[in-house]
């Protein structure tokens, strides 16, 4: 049964991805739920929430709100919270409840903008999809809303799209990605959402190039290319040290890398750089963009499929979040190199043993 999880627990959902993408931009984030989704997002999927004050709210929907579709009350509450707060915009994030009652998010956006006099972003997430889908939608909406002017290109400036703790298991990912790009010679690195804020988004048409570090950032990169001609490149310039340290042994073995696609691809590229004949396959539970897949790469769509693929694949080494081990038979012969994926396990790098 594809939808049954007997060993693993569900991964970060789309609504968490949307909140993660918007977390650092100084807006009011209202999650259109009864309270439970907000608790899950903040308490489990957003590690930054514990380290700083943020403006995340639950709409506090009750049964009659859902039955009667009282969007006007939601917008009135949103306005009251925004008034005098100094927040730059509002964002309304969907959950299963508005999905079921078919909330019109476009109408909500218009109502919120009219009432607050400030930009509003709505993301029609449903809680049934993975985090990267919600993050992708949120990134796209963010840039569509705020990157409105074509500005002169600033030489030596690069944008980083798709970075979040859900994709990179460290709160320092913004600095680490930026440092790696600065080392390559870029003078200014705008790592959107992990270091670079709303002003950088408004100025996004001025960057020389965008680097897309996770599939969640790809739609926004394509939009910026279409709207402003900004080229983009898909690659991940930073990997954890302990993964890099394992490359010599991986280069001579049959290896499976499971992570978000672009980070997994980066591990493969690093292995192939050492030995171009290495046998490396990439898989992901999340988005797999066809144009960046190789022939044997695959998407994992169920726990059963994961067990089947990994136990019968003949791999010597598997680079993945070690929490996935819970689904595997105890007598598996391959070695696991732990590359935490926060969207899978809620673990950061400092939890690697």
């Amino acid at each position, binding site marked *: *049964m594809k*939808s*049954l*999880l*007997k060993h693993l*627990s*569900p*991964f*970060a*959902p*789309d609504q*968490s991805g949307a909140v993660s993408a918007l977390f650092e931009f100084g807006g009011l984030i*209202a*999650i259109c*739920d*009864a*309270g*439970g*989704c*907000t*608790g*899950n997002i*903040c*308490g*489990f*999927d957003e590690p930054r*929430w*514990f380290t700083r*004050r943020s*403006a*995340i*709210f*639950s*709409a*506090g*929907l*009750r*049964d009659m709100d*859902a039955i009667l579709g009282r969007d006007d009350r939601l917008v009135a*509450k949103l306005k*009251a*919270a925004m008034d*005098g*707060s*100094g927040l730059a915009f509002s964002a309304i994030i969907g*959950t*299963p*409840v508005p*999905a*079921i*009652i078919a909330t019109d998010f476009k109408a909500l956006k218009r109502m919120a903008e009219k009432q607050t006099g400030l930009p509003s972003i709505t993301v029609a997430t*449903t*809680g*049934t*999809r*993975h985090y990267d889908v919600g993050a992708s939608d949120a990134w796209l909406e963010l840039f569509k809303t705020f990157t409105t002017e074509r500005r002169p290109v600033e030489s030596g400036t690069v944008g980083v799209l798709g970075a979040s703790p859900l994709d990179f298991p460290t709160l320092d990912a913004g600095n680490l990605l930026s440092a790696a790009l600065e080392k390559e010679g870029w003078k200014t690195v705008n790592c959107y959402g992990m270091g670079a804020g709303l002003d950088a988004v408004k100025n996004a048409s001025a960057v020389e190039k965008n680097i897309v570090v996770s599939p969640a950032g790809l739609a926004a990169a394509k939009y910026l290319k279409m709207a402003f001609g900004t080229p983009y490149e898909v690659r991940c310039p930073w990997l954890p040290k302990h993964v890099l340290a394992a490359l010599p042994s991986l280069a001579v073995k049959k290896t499976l890398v499971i992570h978000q696609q672009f980070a997994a691809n980066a591990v493969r590229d690093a292995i192939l750089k050492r030995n171009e004949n290495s046998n490396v396959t990439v898989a992901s539970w999340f988005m797999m963009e066809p144009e960046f897949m190789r022939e044997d790469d695959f998407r994992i769509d169920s726990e059963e499929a994961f067990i089947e693929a990994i136990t019968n694949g003949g791999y010597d080494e598997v680079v993945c979040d070690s*929490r996935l081990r*819970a689904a595997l038979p105890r007598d598996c012969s391959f070695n696991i190199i732990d590359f935490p994926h926060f969207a899978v*396990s*809620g673990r950061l790098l400092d939890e690697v043993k």
Partner: protein
Amino acid sequence: MNQAYSISAAELAARGKDDIPPELLSSAHLIYSSPATLAFNSPGAQGFGVKRAGLAVPGSVMLLVAPACCGRNTAALGCEAALSERFFYLMQDDTDIVTGRHLSRIPEAVKQVCDSCVKRPSAVMICITCVDALLGTDMERVCRKASDYAGVPVVPCYMYALTREGRLPPMVSVRRSVYSLLQPREKVPTSMNILGFFSPLRDDSELYPMLKSAGIHTIREISRCADFAEYQAMAEANFNLVLNQEARHAAADLRKRLGIPSVELARLYRTDKIANQYRLLGQAVGAEFDDAPYREKAEQAIENFRTKHGRRTFAVGEWLNADPFELALALIGNGFSVSEIFGTVGGSNFVYVKKIAALSPDTKIYSNLSPTMMFYDGKLSACDTVIGRDAMYYHPGLPGVPWNEERQPFGYAGVTALFAALADALSGKESAR
């Protein structure tokens, strides 16, 4: 809006319980989400939400039937509580939600879950969420079908956050669910149950020796039941002692189904009121309790604390094992000050607000859930000691105790332990209590 809203106890009492300002009413505004609100803003985010509570039945497992988002934090719960092997998930997709086809998969999923367990579960608790609340799913019927198919008791647990302020909120409903597997048995006059919590009372609670002195030899709590057989023996109880009003509905169900009457006590921190309760309990069960030694010990703990640490000024939160207003009133009554309370004012605790207003009119009352709490500034507070995990979040530099341990404090032993923990905190020791 650029500062946290608060109202003095005097002003709130003067307005009355029918004129509570909207800033203190969660239905009147967006609900602020901060680490201070995590335990009660979501019925399953931390502590004993519906998911962990549903597993209170010994040997049971839980199948969460919901979109993936509803099960996400369960990984953390399992990790913390070594429960991970008891959680299973049947994830709903968009088509399931539109067509309800997931319901037909539940019997087979229950069977597969049972087959995958090393030891056959005593029961499968099916946890469903807002989705099925809105779909109007008849989960009782689905559970009967699954039970017939898999040959195991299957019980619904309703994690309906949408109904949190309704007649049957999730934490009330789940208490009924976990006792629903009890079947009628012959009553044993010397046996009783304690209902209300999903973890045991502190071992040093005076309730145990006092009840035993009244001839009650067997006291059962669901969290102390070693196995399903012991759990089933709860049906022989002569009466249920309800220590949390959220268990009132479960007690009423047990009275109706099994003929077990119940007596209800509240968790209090005012020793004179605790004494009153025990006197009334004694009258109800036909015994006279000698609670004097326990009361003396509790009052001595307060006196010792006051002597050593003086008349401290407290901030009292609501993420703790107490009603924050009753606890604040107890502190004020014992000669301490309470500068602020983070709490949810309602009909049941407004009586404490009025008493606080009479003794400490300037005590400020905040709502954790108000959007204005984004701007709370602890530097403006006069408190020097904090109680409650949420209050500790607002005042990270001050000594205090979270007082939200899973072992439940109650009665005099709770008072004694609280002041001992506070004394430890003020002495710079990490509380081990």
